[in-house]
């Protein structure tokens, strides 16, 4: 995720302030250095880093922490505010008829983003159309056409025409009845004068409501120059950051936002058309600073539950709270967990679990957990319906049979049964709890953090209560 690293290194230096009520100069200096390092290794532009760290330093030394606030919280708040200030609000995208022009370097992901954005608008109940004006790159037309097919949105392009301006004009006419027009363009960089002139011409023909700059999360310091030149040429109203599912931190996006005076509109997080998120600054910064992002989490849970429920109508997550908790329920939960995305991403959104906690886990902890979940899934596939409904009926000989059927060893089967038993007990504790108890429980999880880990490490079941 954007600036992941800033989160962990910043937290560790902030933790050194634990228990202190006043900041001395050394503390501030060390933290500032850490902030600079983190931002720089996240590809944020050097001058911007210096500006940002200077104002954090000034405020950290100049402002008195409010009474009763620890030094750590004081600094945390300053960093939070400065970062929110820098990142700004998410680009305003009214859900109404509009034309959007996409621009960016070769290979930054414009065509994929165009289809993803169209998909996003279609889910909001609008009728989008993608107009492909890339006449230069071989295969661009076919790529756009296939992506739009997958996104189930209208598409216009003309493989026989080689004037992008004409295609843009014809495309707008041909897709007149669509609400949202997304105009994709050929990749170009800021130093190619003739291509910059071309996109200026497309811009004046299309007359977009906003032009978005599509940036690869891995872009380095060059982001500044590229953003400035594109902004000069066509006026950039927002930034789409792509390939955030890699390890790049996306600091170039902050640079671009700063340079163009715009904001982040969308984040691209994968290769399928659904892998797109609107950028949410507050949640994003909280997650970054290890404060969790419950809003994103609950959205993901809801979506995942709905998707899991869609496939089989006879399963209601609510049943768990009333009836007994069977292996079938557990399997469903694991399925839902999988749909929420990679475990570490989900974990990061849980207050108290994300950030600091995550840093302490070995790097491969999440992989191991995911492997285990996969093994459990295979094992459950090897069970009969009756066994899934009544796990207690599974004796030693059945364990042997299941293990053989699943190609796993017997211990893993035993572990699964053990895990189920633990979860069943947890769920039973939840049953009969009032609303207030639930809130207290949440609070406990928020403060303690560690509590939920056992279940998660074991099989990802600990999240059950969130459903």
């Amino acid at each position: 995720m954007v600036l992941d690293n800033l989160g962990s290194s910043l937290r560790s230096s902030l933790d050194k302030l634990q228990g202190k009520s006043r900041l001395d100069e050394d503390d501030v200096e060390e933290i500032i250095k850490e902030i600079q390092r983190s931002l720089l290794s996240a590809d944020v532009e050097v001058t911007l880093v210096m500006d940002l760290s200077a104002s954090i330093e000034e405020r950290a030394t100049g402002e008195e922490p409010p009474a009763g606030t620890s030094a750590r919280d004081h600094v945390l708040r300053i960093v939070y505010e400065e970062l929110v200030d820098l990142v700004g609000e998410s680009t305003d995208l009214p859900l109404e008829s509009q034309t959007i022009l996409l621009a960016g370097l070769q290979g930054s992901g414009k065509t994929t983003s165009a289809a993803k954005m169209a998909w996003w608008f279609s889910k909001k109940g609008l009728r989008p159309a993608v107009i492909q004006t890339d006449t230069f790159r071989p295969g661009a037309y076919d790529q756009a056409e296939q992506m739009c097919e997958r996104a189930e949105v209208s598409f216009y392009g003309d493989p026989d025409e080689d004037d992008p301006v004409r295609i843009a004009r014809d495309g707008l006419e041909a897709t007149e009845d669509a609400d949202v027009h997304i105009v994709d363009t050929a990749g170009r960089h800021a130093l190619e004068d003739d291509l910059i002139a071309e996109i200026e011409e497309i811009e004046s023909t299309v007359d977009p409501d906003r032009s978005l700059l599509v940036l690869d999360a891995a872009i380095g310091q060059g982001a500044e120059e590229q953003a400035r030149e594109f902004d000069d040429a066509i006026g950039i109203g927002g930034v789409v950051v792509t390939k955030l599912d890699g390890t790049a931190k996306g600091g170039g996006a902050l640079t671009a936002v700063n340079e163009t005076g715009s904001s982040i509109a969308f984040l691209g997080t994968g290769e399928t058309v659904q892998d797109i998120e609107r950028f949410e600054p507050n949640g994003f910064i909280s997650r970054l600073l290890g404060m969790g992002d419950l809003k994103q989490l609950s959205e993901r849970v809801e979506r995942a539950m709905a998707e899991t429920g869609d496939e089989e109508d006879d399963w209601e997550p609510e049943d768990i709270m009333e009836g007994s908790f069977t292996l079938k329920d557990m399997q469903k939960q694991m399925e839902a967990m999988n749909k929420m995305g990679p475990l570490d991403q989900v974990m990061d959104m849980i207050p108290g679990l994300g950030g600091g906690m995550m840093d302490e886990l070995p790097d491969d902890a999440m992989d191991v957990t995911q492997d285990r979940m996969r093994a459990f899934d295979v094992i459950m596939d090897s069970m009969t319906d009756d066994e899934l409904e009544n796990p207690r009926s599974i004796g030693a000989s059945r364990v042997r049979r299941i293990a053989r059927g699943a190609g796993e060893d017997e211990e893993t089967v035993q572990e699964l049964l053990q895990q189920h038993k633990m979860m069943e007990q947890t769920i039973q504790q939840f049953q009969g709890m009032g609303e207030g108890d639930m809130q207290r429980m949440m609070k406990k999880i928020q403060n303690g953090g560690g509590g939920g880990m056992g279940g998660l490490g074991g099989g990802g079941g600990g999240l059950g209560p969130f459903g």
Partner: protein
Amino acid sequence: MFDGLKDKLGSFREDVEETAEEKAEAEAETDAPTEADESSEGTGGPSSPADSVEAGADEPVAGDADLATEGGGDPEEGGGLAADEAAAALEEDDDEESGPGRLKRAAAFATGKIIIEEEDLEDPLWNLEMALLESDVEMNVAEEILDTIRGKMIGETRAQVETTGELVEVALRDALYDVISVGQFDFDERVQDADKPVTIVFTGVNGVGKTTSIAKLSRYFEERGLDVVMANGDTYRAGANEQIREHADALATKLISHEQGGDPAAVLYDAVEYAEANDVDVVLGDTAGRLHTSDDLMAQLEKIDRVVDPDMTLFVDEAVAGQDAVKRAEQFNDAAEINGTVLTKADADSSGGAAISIAYVTGRPILFLGVGQGYDDIERFDPERLVDRLVGEE
């Protein structure tokens, strides 16, 4: 490309020169005060703290002025630096008492030489580090370069005949050359001499320009009298088949491809078989772009590497990539060991730090630069010429 870095390296040299000159002057002037210091120390013990405070107060002023003259272009660095400056000044005070340099320095002074000490380099090196980072050199690699320079320069005595500039230039050249020239080999010769067909597989993340580079290299080999067959191992991305097909048609090169969704290893394998049967010299195998975080796709890459067993694997990345370039280069190298790197979009980037970082962490050379959208827009990467251009006076 690399012009930005060149400017910044130039200013590093000036920084050090300036510091050294100031030091030489200061040396001459401060000689007396140091004596005075000593005598006061001798007379009254308790008064010495006051002395060092005074010295401490003097230093930062000098330091600030220094900054203002050299860093005129970016005054915002001052904020972050002021604290360093003070710390450095303090350290200097401490060192003065204990440093082994004292006798040496006296000797050097007597013979008209000055010695470069750590604190002399602190500011210029900080500026250099920022310059490297601004050029997208990865942080750890930048630190490595700084260490090399530090190691080469500290404690060096420079004779008065030798300018500080020359000393810096040598240290810079060595440090950069070490990093940039790593593992270079004669690519053309290796391809010419190898048993035919030579199979070259291209790997890298999405959108860096693998297919375009293959098309350019296809032209490159044809010009050197080698037949080429292209194989489309990207059976995943929408439009991938169409893209490489158009290149193959334009270049009149044979292309082996399967349906979208097919097994990439099988496509590459078929291409090698075709090359063997038809006496084709070079097989250029494309692969789907993949992010190094995708375990499944990286496992697939390992499989391709195992099944096809290529003569060479070239990693393709873009010159505009930032700090992350290193991480992905490492991971691609782990999955399917690379023999070299093709750096694309070099015409879009003025810094070129990615080249330095990737070569350094993989231990494999940068072989080609992609410098435009035409088939001829590919250049052999020449580290020696580059370093000359970077540090040489023009």
